[in-house]
């Protein structure tokens, strides 16, 4: 029996589950029972974070600062002066790019006295006519890939203008154009540092892990406290959020370089500097540029969320539209965000995959032909815009189409929404009520009735079976940290929602992925769909589900399921495709049917990879669930949202973000350990 138990993992899991159930039903549910709920010993943790932040901002290390208004020195905390300086410079940069695109006087004004500006109202920097931006996007698209990308970019940018979303779109774009390069520089430098120094990498790794699994929201409030409200704060939150993937991909790309190439650089007599900039970075170029792509997508996703702390642009308008339940308008703005996302995604990917071509002895005109064409178009566009001003009497449609003065399909969309509601309300509502009362509520109650000891048995026991004591004690403290706070019940609600979303997404992903992996064409198509939907900022997914189910848990879960099905489908396809052809052939020659091949060969071999997808599925759905608080759910996300208006919000938001991150990390650890062991067992790399 003992031998058998040692060998059989299912038996071990069975016993674990039994123990779990015994505790689940036998532990008395009383507040004083330690097995039922742990006391909130870490209750003061958020407060402590808060006090640290505030003392840094107001008391710590005072320095004397000259106040030009009162003409005297004032004592101010050094840290706050630093954050203020950062805020000011980031804001300046954003305004600068924004005024290049949209015109304005602030950037120029900062070099000229106010009184002169007030007496010379004509003095203002003109906006780029939208026609010029369209042609610029087309030229860039053509240069990066060819005529198809040029057309895509051209049509996309035209849409932004014609549908009257030009100004907010350009505000969002300017936001990305500033945050993405800053993230790139930070990420690249940190990545290089981590590559060069193992100790730095070891220190970076856990920070990256937590940062990448923290929901977007939890960055907002601490940043708001430190940097105030406005575009700059949004930008800084975005930078904090979008830099980690860049760091990670830089390290990965540099590590991937074959040691021979490094040696060849050394033997060519490179010093450290030359080795870095002439050998390492150019060789890792593609990986680094994939990192840039990730950064851009993250920045864009964050611009929407950053609108909560005052970032202007499409996200801000989307938030307003959603809050007032104007679905049509929200959808219209959502389309704009998706267009910008798709175009930027395609641009950066084309850049990453573009191979350098060698042009020997080209003339100045040949080398700079695209720049010259753009300059000519800029001139033509400006002249047209100038003279068109005389032709149109109210709005100069060839210069800038003002906000909401273009075409609009929102009445149409609203009518569609009304129609959907009128026609399907009964069915939708019935489904909604059925789901909530028969599935969600019982599940929620069951989760809340779980004694804390059972949760630990489940997590640590699984850890022990999968990875021994080491895993058990990696997972344990992560959960303990949450259990010792006052938010354990909220965390359980979050976990119940996540479980539901992950289970459904995984089933859908497995089915869809397996089916499409059967044919080459379907695989390609499905991967394209995954790529396409993954470019959408997560926020956008909430629009259609609110349309269908209003503001309920169902909506949030539905959005989470849609969003999280992307990685589970993708990883299923990738896993199945990675099964070697020779094995397929061997199986076929043994005479298996298609279904047998799927169950006996493909799924077992692909499963470790599919499990990694489940990992991603969890992170995706948790992000969406927390985001769902925006439209009203009662998990951790809601408190994060609520803390926006609380005095001690920064600490609470950060703590809760860390909780969500810890849930992710615990599950991530279990799945990764299992997957790696299984891969080793199967002999696949």
């Amino acid at each position, binding site marked *: 029996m003992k031998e058998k138990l040692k060998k059989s993992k299912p038996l071990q899991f069975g016993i674990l589950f039994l123990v779990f159930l015994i505790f689940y039903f036998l532990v008395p549910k009383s507040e004083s029972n330690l097995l039922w709920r742990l006391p909130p010993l870490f209750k003061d943790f958020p407060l402590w974070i808060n006090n640290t932040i505030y003392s840094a901002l107001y008391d710590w290390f005072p320095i004397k600062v000259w106040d030009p208004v009162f003409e005297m020195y004032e004592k101010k905390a050094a840290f706050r002066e630093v954050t203020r300086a950062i805020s000011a410079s980031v804001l300046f940069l954003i305004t600068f790019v924004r005024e290049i695109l949209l015109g304005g006087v602030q950037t120029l004004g900062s070099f000229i006295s106010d009184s002169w500006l007030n007496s010379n109202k004509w003095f203002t920097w003109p906006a780029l006519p939208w026609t010029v931006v369209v042609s610029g996007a087309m030229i860039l698209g053509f240069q990066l890939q060819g005529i198809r990308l040029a057309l895509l970019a051209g049509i996309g940018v035209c849409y932004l203008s014609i549908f009257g979303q030009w100004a907010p779109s350009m505000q969002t774009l300017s936001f990305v154009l500033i945050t993405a390069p800053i993230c790139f520089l930070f990420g690249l430098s940190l990545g290089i540092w981590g590559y060069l120094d193992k100790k730095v990498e070891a220190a970076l790794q856990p920070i990256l892990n937590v940062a990448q699994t923290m929901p977007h929201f939890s960055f907002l409030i601490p940043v708001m406290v430190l940097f105030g409200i406005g575009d700059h704060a949004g930008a800084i939150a975005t930078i904090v959020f979008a830099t980690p993937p860049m760091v990670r991909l830089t390290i990965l790309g540099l590590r991937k370089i*074959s040691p021979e*190439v490094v040696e060849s650089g050394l*033997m*060519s*007599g*490179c*010093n450290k500097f030359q080795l870095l900039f002439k*050998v390492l970075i150019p*060789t890792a170029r593609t990986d680094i540029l994939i990192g840039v792509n990730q950064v851009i997508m993250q920045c864009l996703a964050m611009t929407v969320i950053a609108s909560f702390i005052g970032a202007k642009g499409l996200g801000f308008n989307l938030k307003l539209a959603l809050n007032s339940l104007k679905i049509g308008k929200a959808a219209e703005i959502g389309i704009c965000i998706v267009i910008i996302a798709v175009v930027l995604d395609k641009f950066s990917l084309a850049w990453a995959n573009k191979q350098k071509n060698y042009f020997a002895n080209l003339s100045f005109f040949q080398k700079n032909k695209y720049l010259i064409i753009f300059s000519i178009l800029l001139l033509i566009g400006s002249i047209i815009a100038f003279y068109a001003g005389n032709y149109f009497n109210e709005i100069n449609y060839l210069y800038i189409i003002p906000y909401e003065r273009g075409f609009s399909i929102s009445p149409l969309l609203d009518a569609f929404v009304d129609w959907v509601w009128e026609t399907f309300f009964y069915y939708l509502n019935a489904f909604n009520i059925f789901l909530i009362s028969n599935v969600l509520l019982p599940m929620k109650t069951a989760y809340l009735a779980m004694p804390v000891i059972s949760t630990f048995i489940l997590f640590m026991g699984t850890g022990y079976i999968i990875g021994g004591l080491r895993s058990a004690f990696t997972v344990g403290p992560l959960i303990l940290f949450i259990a010792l706070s006052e938010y354990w019940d909220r965390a359980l609600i979050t976990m119940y929602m996540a479980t539901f979303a992950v289970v459904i997404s995984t089933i859908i992903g497995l089915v869809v992925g397996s089916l499409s992996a059967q044919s080459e064409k379907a695989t390609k198509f499905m991967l394209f769909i995954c790529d396409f939907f993954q470019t959408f900022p997560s926020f956008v997914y909430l629009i259609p589900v609110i349309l269908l189910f209003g503001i309920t848990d169902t909506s949030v879960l539905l959005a989470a399921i849609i969003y999280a099905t992307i990685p589970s489908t993708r990883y299923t396809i990738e896993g199945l495709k990675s099964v070697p052809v020779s094995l397929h052939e061997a199986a076929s020659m043994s005479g298996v049917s298609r279904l047998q091949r799927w169950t006996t060969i493909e799924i077992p071999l692909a499963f470790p990879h599919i499990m990694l997808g489940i990992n991603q599925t969890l992170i995706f759905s948790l992000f969406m669930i927390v985001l769902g608080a925006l439209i009203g759910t009662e998990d951790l996300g809601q408190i994060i949202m609520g803390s926006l208006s609380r005095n001690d919000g920064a600490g609470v938001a950060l703590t809760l973000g860390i909780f969500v991150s810890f849930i992710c990390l615990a599950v991530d650890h279990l799945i990764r350990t299992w997957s790696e062991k299984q891969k080793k067992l199967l002999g696949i790399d």
Partner: protein
Amino acid sequence: MQNSSNNPVIKCESVYKIFGTNAKKLLENTEGAVDAKKFQDAGCIVGVNNASFEVHKGEMLVVMGLSGSGKSTLLRCISRLGESTSGKIYIDGEDLNAMNSKQLIELRRNKMGMVFQNFALLPHKTVIENIAFPLQVKGNNTTDSMNKALEMVELVGLKGRENYFPRELSGGQQQRVGIARSLAVEPDIWFLDEPFSALDPLIRKEMQDEFLRLQGVLNKTIMFVTHDFDEALRLADRIAIMKDGIIEQLDTPDNIVLNPATDYVKKFTEDVPREKVLKIESIMDPVDPNISNNSNVSKNDIIEKVAEVILNSKETLNVIDPKENKVVGSLNPSKVIKVLFGD
């Protein structure tokens, strides 16, 4: 070819390379006698075990061994791409391990060139830019380095492909670029780390011929690492056979084939067709003044090439040194028969 009275270009004195955290301490305790097994138990892996040898100017030393024998590790100690754990290495009489990084960079920029197994070309540079890379790193101006690189392109027979990228070339062509790059700074010492192992057999043969032609023109001091015994026999002036980090035998190809020092070496030599490897020199007898035969053979000829002449003559022949045109030995056809058909 070598002149032992000259100073050796490369000189190793009991070089050890042991991987592992405590390697240095463990090595100090053993006082030179390293037992690989004991080290393995202590968590260390022995890469190079007490290597001592010299390479002279213009000589080609081929280091031969199977994978894991420590041959590449030895090469990396001598190019200082890896630090040796103990022992002395002298390049032109200078202590390599005592050099600081600045001196090391100078040394590599002027005296050393290296060719890699998987070519290790920079993917973002064209053929000519790759070849010019060591020159530009050195700080030469663009025109000079491009001219020099063009010369190299011609030398390795890649003219017309200067502006290709590595990804557009075949394996053999890529390795020609690698060779040209390693020669661009006109180094005295040339390291080659399994340069032809990643190539198809036919291309490999072609590249070996090309390599011998180049060496005939350039006459560099060479350390050549390979796992292919035939390749070692074809190219080497001397061969060092390595196993588990130890140099089992270091000798001329002829001597290794005729007198394998250990059973391990014997395994390699057993199946080698001797007539295709051995030179007349290695089987000839001392000068015999009584020979009346008019035909003679050169001491540098491979036996197979002249076997027909020798066997036809039926009598003992004179062996001459073609350089000095002097009789240096004698050869009885029966000896050739013995080599060809065994005892």
